[in-house]
């Protein structure tokens, strides 16, 4: 019937009189990366905690891997892997022992466990530090170990709660590459982030969460197109063509020095086709054509009425 890895409808959660989730609906396709984007306090971690069976929602339904998180928690847990916001590694165990601990708790047979542990250490570039205690690891290494521990049982759905918060740019890129590899293997990734760039870089679909409500949902490009201010930029070979185009395209602004024309447009296929058709009609040649959409920071501002940084600070 459905091939959704995660299907959520009308999810609600309140702590006392503080509403944290206010009717969240979302759907994540198998094998895709889904990013839940929002500032601190938006309800991202609460959503992850409900979907991973850590807390119970007050209302609504959530199916993960086809199982209801409220009534089939065990089946859900068997299908998922979770890497929380704070690296949950055992500091007093070595990297290798941490992975072995996961293998033991998953009741892997000794030979299988040994193979899995060795291959994960290798894959995450931790072989050299395998015998060192996790307390000596850097932030980036801890996150890698944390994720490796999550992967011991090869979960089909992986939740990553702010996987790169607090990491330096290089470790962040490494983490991004790892996430992309996971999806290449067919895994579904549900990640939360407060970094717009991260969602843009990784996600197939993004949902924007603000004060417990989804204020937008779509592909990164769809989201960017919802924001006023996107435009089409046309460059021409000479001033005559530029002038001709400026006359036929209403509301456009010309830059004579650069020989470019800026035309307001939502960037969608229909409006671009109409625009190009009009230029064709007047036989105006275009040297270069590009659609400019605002970045996700603009999106956030337009959708929520406040800047993401503002919300983070509050």
């Amino acid at each position, binding site marked *: 019937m459905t091939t959704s890895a995660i299907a959520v409808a009308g999810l609600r959660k309140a702590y006392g009189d503080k509403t944290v989730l206010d009717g969240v609906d979302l759907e994540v396709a198998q094998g895709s990366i889904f990013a839940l984007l929002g500032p601190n306090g938006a309800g991202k971690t609460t959503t992850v905690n409900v979907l991973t069976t850590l807390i119970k929602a007050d209302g609504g339904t959530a199916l993960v891997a086809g199982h209801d998180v409220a009534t089939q928690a065990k*089946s859900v847990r068997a299908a998922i892997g979770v890497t929380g916001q704070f690296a949950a590694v055992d500091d007093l165990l070595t990297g290798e022992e941490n992975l072995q601990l996961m293998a033991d*708790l998953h009741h892997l047979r000794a030979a299988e466990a040994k193979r899995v542990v060795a291959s994960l250490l290798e894959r995450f570039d931790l072989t050299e530090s395998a015998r060192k205690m996790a307390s000596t690891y850097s932030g980036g290494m801890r996150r890698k170990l944390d994720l490796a521990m999550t992967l011991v049982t090869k979960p089909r759905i992986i939740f990553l709660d702010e996987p790169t918060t607090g990491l330096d740019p290089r470790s962040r890129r490494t983490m991004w590459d790892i996430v992309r590899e996971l999806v290449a293997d067919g895994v579904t990734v549900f990640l939360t982030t407060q970094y717009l760039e991260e969602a843009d870089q990784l996600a197939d679909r993004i949902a924007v969460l603000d004060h417990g409500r989804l204020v937008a949902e779509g592909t990164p490009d769809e989201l960017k197109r919802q924001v006023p201010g996107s435009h089409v930029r046309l460059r021409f070979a000479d001033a005559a063509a530029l002038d001709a185009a400026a006359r036929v395209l209403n509301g456009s602004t010309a830059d004579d020095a650069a020989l470019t024309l800026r035309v307001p447009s939502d960037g969608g296929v229909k409006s671009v086709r109409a625009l190009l058709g009009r230029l064709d009609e007047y036989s105006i040649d275009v040297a270069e054509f590009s659609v400019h959409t605002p970045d996700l920071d603009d999106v956030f501002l337009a959708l929520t009425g406040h800047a993401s940084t503002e919300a983070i600070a509050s």
Partner: protein
Amino acid sequence: MSTITAAPSTSTTAPLADSRTMVRRNFRHILRNPVTIFNGALMPVVIMLLFVYVLGGAFNVGEHYIQYATPGMVLLAITYGLSGTAVSVNSDMTKGIINRFKVMNVSRGAVLTGHVVATMLSTSIAVAVIIGMAFALGFRSPATPLEWLAAIGIILATAFAAAWLTVALGMAAKTPESAGMATVPLILLPFLSSAIVPAAKMGQGFRQFAQYQPFTPIIESVRGLLAGTPSGGYAAAALAWCAGIALVGYLWSRATFSQRA
């Protein structure tokens, strides 16, 4: 519905196997934390030497002091190691690893059982060291093997009760630091019992307290068994205290465990 299926090995829980894994993990923690080893095994030895050679000569207990003090020292060996357990339980709860266990199909009881059993293991080692030291310092016991077994039974029951109470204290504390502090009363209690000197020799108030607190019947029953003069009354009181404390600790731990995180 979905085509996603779970790996069969993880969809069932195995409390015994999980507990064994957790015991191994927690015992490793104890071995790798020098403070725990010092508190658990060395501190009682130091205190024993201090009391037997420095202070004990001044106490008039009616027999050689080592004969009197050994059961008390065994109790100290149990209580001194507890702060390490409380800190370790609390770190599990506050540093996120508990959530990792909770989103896996790990038997819920295994996390707590792991701490209790690992604590009892390390306590047993400390107790064995102290009893060995006592013999080296001249302690002699006319107890029969059966009396020895009974004494060891009471010691283990005490360790069991103290471990559950400590797990509960560690779980209820807000931070690892306050968890360590929470066990201090437990560490002080033996000093206010007949462990070091007979309760009858204490001042007003302390004497009554010492007579009615749990460690006195525990120590007196062990002392009686090792001296070859067992007292059924003390033993019954000791076991009743242990059962009560263990039950409170167990219920409190379980309640806090399901409540937090």
